[in-house]
């Protein structure tokens, strides 16, 4: 495992393809962002994340599924960064596609793209986190599910602190755009709740999938004549 050269890392071409696709999307969304300063601030964490993933790829390659999940989340985030989260025109897109306003259909009073992104954060990133945790700690069973969920939820709490810190440092309109609370006094709590909900859904889905798979595996073993 440790002697593998880069060439043999499983799914190398797949990951390279994802990286290339993300680079294209990132570049397209880097063209004339609505608020350049907010775009730059939002992308600081993207650059950091991609850097860590790229550096870790040789020694600590994740599964294709994990890379795909991370990719989808980063796409959400760079869309939010391009338009500024509070101004992503998802409602206009929904109206153009279906002829109905999504906000009106759901009774939303504010632009909820940031809330969606927080939910998606928990939903998509729990699985990659679980992969890392299991490989580092070797934990199985309950703790193999609980700790990744715990870490995902906690990281969303730390994100709220980072967001606030950045808003305090930069202040003014940029700070307001970056926090993106749109005047909601419960913004931090709602953001964290949605990330937690996403992580819980992902954990339940992962556990159910594993149970179903191992059940099928056991049945196959039981039906084969010699064990």
């Amino acid at each position: 495992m440790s002697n593998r050269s880069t060439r043999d890392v499983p799914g190398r071409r797949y990951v390279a393809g994802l990286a290339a696709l993300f680079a294209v999307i990132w570049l397209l969304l880097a063209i004339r962002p609505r608020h350049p300063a907010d775009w730059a601030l939002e992308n600081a964490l993207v650059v950091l994340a991609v850097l860590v993933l790229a550096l870790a790829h040789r020694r600590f390659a994740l599964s294709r599924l994990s890379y795909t999940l991370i990719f989808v989340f980063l796409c959400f985030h760079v869309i939010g960064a391009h338009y500024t989260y509070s101004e992503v025109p998802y409602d206009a897109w929904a109206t153009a596609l279906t002829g109905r306003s999504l906000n009106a259909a759901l009774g939303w009073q504010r632009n909820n793209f940031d809330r969606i992104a927080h939910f998606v954060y928990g939903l998509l990133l729990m699985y990659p986190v679980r992969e890392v945790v299991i490989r580092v700690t070797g934990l199985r069973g309950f703790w193999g599910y609980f700790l990744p969920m715990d870490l995902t939820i906690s990281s969303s709490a730390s994100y709220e602190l980072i967001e606030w810190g950045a808003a305090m440092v930069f202040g003014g309109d940029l700070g307001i755009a970056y926090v993106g609370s749109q005047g909601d006094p419960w913004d931090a709590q709602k953001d964290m709740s949605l990330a937690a909900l996403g992580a819980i859904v992902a954990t339940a889905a992962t556990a159910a999938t594993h149970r179903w798979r191992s059940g099928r595996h056991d049945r196959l073993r039981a039906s084969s004549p010699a064990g």
Partner: protein
Amino acid sequence: MIQSGLLAGYLVLWGAMGLAPLDSQNWVLSSILPLTFVGALVFGRRSMPLSTASYVLIGGFLAFHTVGAHYTYAQVPVGQWLQGLLGLERNHFDRVTHFAFGLLLTYPLLEVFRRLTGARRLLLFYLAFMTQLGLAGAWEIIESVVAQLTRPDLGAAFLGAQGDPWDAQHDMLAATCGTVVALLLTAGWQRLERRESGRDPGLSEAVP
């Protein structure tokens, strides 16, 4: 023995603080979590026994919370005295309690994680740090839900926040600071112990 004493001490404090609290509804709501916590500790004293140090730390934190609940946090006399002394805009007893949450509950958490997950050293500390941060966030969520259910008219001006728009962030930061101090103290203590005894100390599997 010490555990029974702590339990008795806490229940006496709880009973005393339960006499004529400033806001009975607030008191009842604030008592749910600590009593659940104490119940879990009593129930789990055989399956998950903690060290005496952990029980003392937990007792200390619960005392903070119970006193705060009696005075609805915003009117704790010690906090008011501090407010006057330092010329603060609000009563900071709640922030002190958030800090105490991090400071006092991190060590028991390290002990539980050490035992249940087998994690050690940096990984153990990281897990405890993140979990404390997550719990601080969870507390803010609970607080906001309760505030919206019981006093929807108050909005952001509800009791706990005392008008601070960044209340949740300040609270979580206070808890995080307490956690960091606790982790540094634990790390320092472990290093001392290791130097003296030459063994990997504390947080061990064999807690009485």
